[in-house]
């Protein structure tokens, strides 16, 4: 199968125990991409990235090169902010990139900064990543000493500083405008757009916010060319992608796969990937792209790992986390568990999300614990509809950010797929799976 022949763009060093050290990084071609980048005009790097077709790996999948080009010309200073606040349940790919190959990220940040003509980048790292902080701090010090950061990078005249900033434990700070508020020292709450960060972002200055994985691709693209990257994958889903596979598979973990060349079935069953479902059971449902994504049933197993294809089928690849639920899974409990996360993490700014998340969580809990009513199913669907009118993907927007309208995804898809099981909870006065 074609996906097995793809190069390891993001994970090439992970086979080494000391992948996080500068020595290993340099021994494996580290900082060659940055050296090559600063030797070329910045605009050429932007063009390479545009050519690569790279789309943001944070969830929304916006074309990275295009995002960069929204920066207004001649407004300085401008900032690059790196979103390392990976906090979605079952998403753990950036976590690994930060801990296991910090220099690769630093190199990517420096290249992107050079490309967009920014001299100060901020790395917002999830506060809970203790080891990540330790390794990133050390790697930053090493990079400065090595001449990859600071004034006059590798003698090119390019200056770049990276500020490492620990998050304080809020999922919402992974939303780019909330991240900017948090970075500025304010409560982490999304901001109204427009103005978009590209125009008025951090400290009201033009700002690009990129995800960790997105930037980890930079050195490879510079060294191999945007066209080589674009040759991987298919259509608008180019390159490779790091997927966090978890749930009822035999081999959960992070897997770098070439986009569009394989399917969810491959991901779950290939011996080199998921290695099959635990105990040889059947897939009951799976989440194709993070907790916010509408669920898929077994009928979608042959859906290719292609951003547009997944979206067309009513969900998303989102943050790249794939969760497999086998037939032993209680869909009510699963939906409740995810909703509880969102209710806990709603920042509380917009009414529908603040109040709706808590309400939905309470109703789901009631059903799971045996006090459900038949009318609760329609109530759930209607409250969901008040959060995301139309109950489709991408969701209708009723709030400032997309957190609120994402909350209904597991609820309405699980009710649509497993209405009978919900009703069993109601009729039997409790969970048949416990």
């Amino acid at each position: 199968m074609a996906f097995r022949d793809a190069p390891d763009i993001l994970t090439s060093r992970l086979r080494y125990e000391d992948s996080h050290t500068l020595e290993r990084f340099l021994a494996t071609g580290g900082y060659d991409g940055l050296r090559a980048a600063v030797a070329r005009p910045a605009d050429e790097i932007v063009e390479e990235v545009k050519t690569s077709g790279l789309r943001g790996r944070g969830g929304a999948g916006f074309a990275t090169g295009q995002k960069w080009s929204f920066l207004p010309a001649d407004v300085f200073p401008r900032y690059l902010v790196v979103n390392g606040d990976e906090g979605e349940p079952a998403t753990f790919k950036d976590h690994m990139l930060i801990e296991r190959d910090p220099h690769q990220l630093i190199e990517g940040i420096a290249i992107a900064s050079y490309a967009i003509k920014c001299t100060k980048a901020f790395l917002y790292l999830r506060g809970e990543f203790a080891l990540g902080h330790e390794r990133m701090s050390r790697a930053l010090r090493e990079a400065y000493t090595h001449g990859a950061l600071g004034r006059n990078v590798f003698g090119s005249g390019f200056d770049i500083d990276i500020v490492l900033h620990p998050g304080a434990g809020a999922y919402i700070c992974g939303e780019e405008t909330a991240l900017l508020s948090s970075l500025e020292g304010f409560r982490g709450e999304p901001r109204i757009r427009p103005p978009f960060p590209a125009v008025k972002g951090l400290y009201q200055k033009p700002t690009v916010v990129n995800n960790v994985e997105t930037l980890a691709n930079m050195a490879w693209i510079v060294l191999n060319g945007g066209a080589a990257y674009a040759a991987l994958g298919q259509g608008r889903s180019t390159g490779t992608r790091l997927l966090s596979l978890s749930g009822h598979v035999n081999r959960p973990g992070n897997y770098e796969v070439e986009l569009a060349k394989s399917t969810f079935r491959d991901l779950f069953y290939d011996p080199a990937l998921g290695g099959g479902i635990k105990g040889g059971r059947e897939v009951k449902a799976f989440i194709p792209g993070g907790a916010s994504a509408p669920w898929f049933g077994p009928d979608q197993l042959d859906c290719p790992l292609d951003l547009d294809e997944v979206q067309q089928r009513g969900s998303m690849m989102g943050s790249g986390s794939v969760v497999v639920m086998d037939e032993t899974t209680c869909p009510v409990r699963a939906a409740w568990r995810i909703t509880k996360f969102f209710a806990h993490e709603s920042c509380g700014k917009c009414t529908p999300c603040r109040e709706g998340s808590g309400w939905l969580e309470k109703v789901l809990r009631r059903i799971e614990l045996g006090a459900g009513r038949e009318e609760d199913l329609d109530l759930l669907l209607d409250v969901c509809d008040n959060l995301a009118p139309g109950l489709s993907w991408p969701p209708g927007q009723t709030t400032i950010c997309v957190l609120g309208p994402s909350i209904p995804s597991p609820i309405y898809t699980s009710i649509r797929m497993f209405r009978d099981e919900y009703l069993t909870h109601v009729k039997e006065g409790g969970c048949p799976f416990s």
Partner: protein
Amino acid sequence: MTEQTETKKDTVTVTVDGKTFEAAPGELVIAAAERHGIYIPRFCWHPRMKPVGMCRMCLVEIEGVRGLPPACTTPVAEGMVVDTRTPVVKKAQDGVLEFLLINHPLDCPVCDRGGECPLQDQTFSFGPGESRFVEEKRHFEKPIAISELVALDRERCIQCARCTRFADEVAGDPLISFVDRGDHTQVLTFPDDPFTSYFSGNTVQICPVGALTASPYRFKARPWDLDQVESTCSTCAVGCRVNLQSSQNDLVRMLGVDSEPVNHSWLCDKGRFGYQAVEHDGRVTHPLVRKGDELIEASWSEAYAAAAKGLADVRDLHGAGAIAFLGGARGTNEDAYAWAKLAKGVLATDSVDCQLDDGLPAAAVLGLPRATIDDACRAKAVLLLGPDLKEELPVLYLRLREAVVDGGVAVVELGPQSTGMTRHAKTTLLYRPGEAVEVARALTSGRDPMPDAGGVRGEELAAAAGILGRAGEGVVVVLGRPSVAESGRTVAEAAAVIAAAWPQARFLPALRRGNVMGALDMGLAPGVLPGRVGLDAGREWFSQEWGVLPEEPGLDAAGIVGAAAEGRVQALVLLGADPINDFPDRTLARRALAGAGFVVAVDTFLTDSSREADVVLPAAMYGEKAGTTTNIEGRVTRVNQKVTAPGTVRSDWIIAAELAQRLGGDLGFDSTAAVWAEIARLAPSHVGLTADVLGRRENRDGVVAPYEGEGPPRHEAPVEQIEAAAAVHQGETLPSEAVAGAPEHAAVDEPSDDDDPAGAGRPPLLTFAVGDAGSTAAPPAVDAYALRLVAGRRLYDNGVTVRHSAHLAGLAPSPRLRANPYDLDRLGLGTGDRVRVTSSRTTLTLEVAADTGIPRGSVALPFNLPGEGAADLIDGTQPVTDLRVETTN
């Protein structure tokens, strides 16, 4: 000009619910729709704050836009088609209201807000009939006091952030904030840091539910029992428009009304809650006449007879010049005019001063070219030479703060100590007390390099001069008294120097007493007559009407108090004046009250001064009388009566008129309307400003004097803008009313239009120039062992209003002597130490505090706090007061 720019529209065409209209580019959909009669429900949006778009109540459909954008964050665009009533919008509105109500306690029957609650109202208009929520609601301890004035019920809160945004964006006091997340989000103060903002009451007014309630109003009334009139606050001279509300003839609440040129709907807490003094049990409710050591209740005719006899005796024995009037800056214009006419036109004494040597000379205030608040807020630069605006004119502080923060206006501050404005100022020049003139001369000298002056370094002066611009073009000077421990004349002289150097500069007086500007306009100051004319210039004009006039210019407050102390002034009439507490030099004020043989006090309470009087005539307070008032801009607005005064209390103008009769005079009016008619006929700056003109819709925000007749008012917002603001009110819970015409005014015959009052003989208005402030003694050389006193005021002080308002009285701080840490170090002192402070007057023991906002060599002690303080130390006969500070052991 090209054809293209000529045809370019400066409006955009939008359609809302099928109605097509023009709107200003950038205007928000919610505001544009409302101006055209389409109300889009909302909670978080407030027309005076930046949109935040979080309650999601105003979601609408816009053609070509995905989803439901909020009308409060979406600006109009050419050709935009908006729908606010489609089934999708309706479902969203139902949904948001249902969401808001699931955790709301619905304790409306015991909620202050019930009956005037936007959540109630909009639920009725836009919400679902019932809730599908069967779970347990969120619970919090309720209510909790977040300050002495405000209680917070977090269960009722709908997290609209109006209060937190107000505190942060408008007041600049970010003392309340959201904590926690999701449906546990709550508003709270920071630990051990209560919501002690001077503007906290505004958060109660703008709260769209009953989450924030005002301690003075809690459970006092239900909205449907309230009766209200629109009026003007008279706590300070900013002149905020208010709704005055009563229940069963008790004032129970004041709410800010959105006046575009003045207060933008905001009030300070002193203004908002000071009505409690009106309802205080300790009011003087009947006349009192001294019998030996005691003041005995008497009838009005006994009291009038005693007052008239005492005054007539002094006049007959010592001449009219031995009678003096102090005070009168807290009443209406009509009151002030009546007193001026009694003093100058009946008794023929010019020793009249509505200020107590704590303001500025009348000639300067009346004679300098005037600026409005809007002028100041739109100026290229503002020079602030005056008191701490946050403490004395709080809403002017809000307006200027907004101008700085949002409008980028550059403020240069010039004063003897840092103030609430300092953090917003581009630069603050801290001068040595008494040396404002030297600093003004240097600042306007254009010299390069700039010399040091008045304790300010040349480089700082040069930087400030650079900001203000060499020619002073477009500079507005906010002018008041920075410290009562230095002579007001030096400040006036400094202003004259600036006016001479920068002819384009205009001045916004920053005097504090409620109607001090009206009192000055009405002639309650020496050397002036009503309508901003000098005594001599106006002599002929007024003598035709008034009969007698004073022969010679009289004494100002300092002169009166000094003369009374020496027995040269024999009779003192105190018009709500309490010189023992309000005159800078308490020692001299005490001697004056003892030295004056006969004292009449027209007052609302027995104060330290009125207790010494021979006759006390009880006067009506704010809310108990109608008339007009004048703010710092010269803006004349109506004040209205809401409650009946207690006992036999009367309005000042009636007391003046009846006293005049006993003194053989006749003031010639029998109603407030008649007094105003005379003012509008005679006072040169007010000629033509009739009750009819004041009552016009376009004058709902008042009229700035000098009145220039018909045509667009000077420095006013265009009418469209006023109407826009007026339209906006309709959407607020408590809409402002158009200025209600006082019926008594309507009954008066106005002078006919063809009777041109600007005819021959009308005297010219005062002007003020260098030297007009009178001689100013230079301050003595600085003594290395002494510290020079700075005495400003605090919002909560020992004044009548605060002292008699139950919820404000405890807020006055205890006096602390603040000094630069350098000086404290030099004396081996630190914050909290107690020291002996000695002036030429007395010695006090005080606590010291280090404050880098006080320049080296000076010490600051707030004026008129409860107990001994600055007034005991100040020697009013000297240009400055030097203190010796020693350790107590």
